[in-house]
């Protein structure tokens, strides 16, 4: 079971680059890259809120649950 982060898909839809999104969300590009590449172990609600605000989307648009045990 894992959580998939679909940040890159949403960034393409909203036509926004990583550095611009990092500035809007007020986190470093490195941290955003960690999230984008699926290496993050956790995300703060404040960060999720800022991402949804910047990308004008819902948390469900950014996060997807994949059941790999089936």
């Amino acid at each position, binding site marked *: 079971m894992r959580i998939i982060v679909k940040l890159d898909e949403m960034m393409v839809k909203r036509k926004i680059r990583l550095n611009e999104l990092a500035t809007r969300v007020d986190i470093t590009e490195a941290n*955003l890259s*960690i*999230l984008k590449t699926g*290496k*993050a*172990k*956790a995300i*703060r609600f404040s960060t999720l809120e800022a991402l949804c605000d910047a990308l004008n989307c819902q948390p469900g648009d950014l996060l997807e649950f994949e059941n790999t045990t089936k």
Partner: protein
Amino acid sequence: MKNVKSYARFLEVFSILIVMPLASLSFIFRWLLPASTITHHAYASDAGIFYALNLSPLPIASLPLELRALGASIDAISFGLFFWGAFLFIKLLRCYRQGEIFSANTLFLFNKISRVAFAWTLYSPVKFTLLNLILTLQNPVGQRELAIAFSSNDVINIFTVGFFLILTSLMHEGYMLKHEQDLTV
């Protein structure tokens, strides 16, 4: 963090300038200098054992070269373990001075220090037995001694090792928390 760095710097300097030279000089004075007069009674007292036996003590200086070399090599194992532990400790302090507290490197060093301390504690009673025998081997028949002892110093060493093991576990937990925090966005 500032406190950790200053304590680490002080301990590093203290270890390099005071502890290790003193330990080396102690070993040299004990075994290599002809004027050394330590006896097995004095050695046993250092180890925390009360002696009631009326044996004629034989200073190390009176030992033939072969026995002295054997004694020195047995003591050298303990000395080597101590030196290795001190070297690892200094490496750990250098990591702390660089601000590296809960990292894989510090955890690795803590593990190694625990193992060295454990080995040193296990070897301590063995060393006492062997050195006691060697220091009395040149005594007249009936005055040679083979003693097996577990002293208060050994109990203290076991507590110290136990404390180090708990510290190592705590460092591991800290490392896991830090690792998780680093990957929290």
